[in-house]
């Protein structure tokens, strides 16, 4: 699977154009603020229908505009081409695959899988419990639609339960407890299984790139850790209802689960250096690539945004050697960076990015 071309209209600072991308490696070179990350963002929006950095589609319009559109031709694994179109205007977004409108994001996210490596990934290591849950939920959702759907339903039931607590609909709470317990325990079980599989990869990858024998792993601490069945989770919810009513929110459940990155017996978020955490976050993403390929047999598209800059030459080489099993990869670099032969080899395309335009140097 590969993006053959990418087109923009009124999208951020990028000039209205159609840029050919039909190569295994596409390299974007330019100074900061020229549009490299915007290019990656456009690809991401076409894969998932939302941005990895803007929470509001309106923010992606060019300055002074109130609409934008993106389009791409994707070469599928079966040899056919697919057209993806994303249009935003009048506060609404419209997504079409080969002219057919996609109404549920669920039908888009399994279409072209991509994985983005960005600076913000360090939040998976040192950030809030929510950002860590986000990483693991994303990893599993990428290959398991049932998990994704359970998670979506859980969130929806949770919002209803919280609204019932606030509005005094006490008679509905036991009904929500049954649903939360059922969905929550299914999610908890899957998260626990995923962490075991993830650790097998993560421990080895970290040791290989850091060239140490440090044992780094994830400790999963579920909010309902003392429950093994739906009934136990339901009992727990009803036992703690008084506290929930007092706090006006549901205080336990898988939305409070914790994933703690451990360095032997210490919490890595407080013991690790920024460099170590940066490296660990890159390895999180590599593990995500491995996990996706192992579970689906398919190769994702990678968007690697400026993250190599922070690694020394040796680590950069090790990182790139572990980065494998993708169908296409996009990299961004600063002009003074010496990038590696892998991407400037036979099946590579390089663009100089300046003020939103893309030129072959």
């Amino acid at each position: 699977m590969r993006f053959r071309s990418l087109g923009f209209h009124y999208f951020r600072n990028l000039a209205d154009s159609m840029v050919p991308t039909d190569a295994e490696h596409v390299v974007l070179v330019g100074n900061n603020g020229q549009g490299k990350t915007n290019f990656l963002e456009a690809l991401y929006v076409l894969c998932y229908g939302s941005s990895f950095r803007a929470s509001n589609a309106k923010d992606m319009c060019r300055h002074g505009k109130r609409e934008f559109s993106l389009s791409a031709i994707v070469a599928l694994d079966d040899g056919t081409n697919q057209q993806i179109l994303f249009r935003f205007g009048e506060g609404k977004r419209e997504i079409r695959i080969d002219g057919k409108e996609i109404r549920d994001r669920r039908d888009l996210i399994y279409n072209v899988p991509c994985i983005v490596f960005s600076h913000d990934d360090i939040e998976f290591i040192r950030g809030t419990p929510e950002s860590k849950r986000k990483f693991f939920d994303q990893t599993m959702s990428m290959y398991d639609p049932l998990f994704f759907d359970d998670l979506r339903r859980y969130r929806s039931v949770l919002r209803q339960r919280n609204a019932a607590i606030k509005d005094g609909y006490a008679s509905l709470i036991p009904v929500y407890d049954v649903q939360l317990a059922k969905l929550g325990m299914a999610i908890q079980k899957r998260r626990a299984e995923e962490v075991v599989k993830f650790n097998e990869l993560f421990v080895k990858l970290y040791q290989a790139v850091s060239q140490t024998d440090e044992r780094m792993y994830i400790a999963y601490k579920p909010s309902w850790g003392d429950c093994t069945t739906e009934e136990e989770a339901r009992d727990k919810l009803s036992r703690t209802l008084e506290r929930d009513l007092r706090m006006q929110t549901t205080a336990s459940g898988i939305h409070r689960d914790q994933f703690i990155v451990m360095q032997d017996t210490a919490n890595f978020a407080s013991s690790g250096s920024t460099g170590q955490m940066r490296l660990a976050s890159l390895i999180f993403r590599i593990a995500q690539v491995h996990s996706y390929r192992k579970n689906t047999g398919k190769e994702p598209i990678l968007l690697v945004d400026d993250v190599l800059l922070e690694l020394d030459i040796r680590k950069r080489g090790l990182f790139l050697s572990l980065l494998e099993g993708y169908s296409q990869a996009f990299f961004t670099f600063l002009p003074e960076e010496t990038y590696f032969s892998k991407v400037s080899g036979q099946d590579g395309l390089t663009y100089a990015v300046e003020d939103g335009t893309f030129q072959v140097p």
Partner: protein
Amino acid sequence: MTSLEQLAKQLTRLPGIGPKSASRLAYHLIKSDPQYNKQLAELIASIQDLVFPCPICGSFTETDPCPVCADPNRDRSVLCVVEQPQDVVTIAASGAYDGLFHVLGGALSPLEGIGPDKLDFARLLQRIEKESFHEVIIATNPTEEGDTTAMYLRHLLKGKKLTISRLASGLPIGGDLEYADRLTLARSLRGRVDFAD
């Protein structure tokens, strides 16, 4: 604002009609047969007087009680509970059901301010007390809100001598497994039914 713009603006208030469709409809009406426009306007003006909710089941009707509630040939031992009046039409049109109906008027959603007090549970329970149903079929939508409503109703009916059932969900009839989306298939597997002799 011109009369044309005013008409288009009013049309955008209808569900599924955006500004472009509204403008197309407004231009279409200008060019239409005046007789047609008059009939349409009269029908729109009188529809709320002509059609009202059936005082027994809550579905829309022009007679009191509605034709379904009044039909002596229908099976009066089965009651099908639905969210909206339109659902009655859909299920009746399937030809597979000849019992009675009850319309709740929506699904439970505290987020949208819809609690049990906003739906017609009270009259439903009265009907179940007075009439002699053997089975209640809960036909709320297969959404989270529909599931919640179904579970709440099951809770209300606990202890009554009734068979309570819920519509099955899963793979479409006549479709190849090959073409089912992954989620539908995964859910169907999870909700598989016993097939033993």
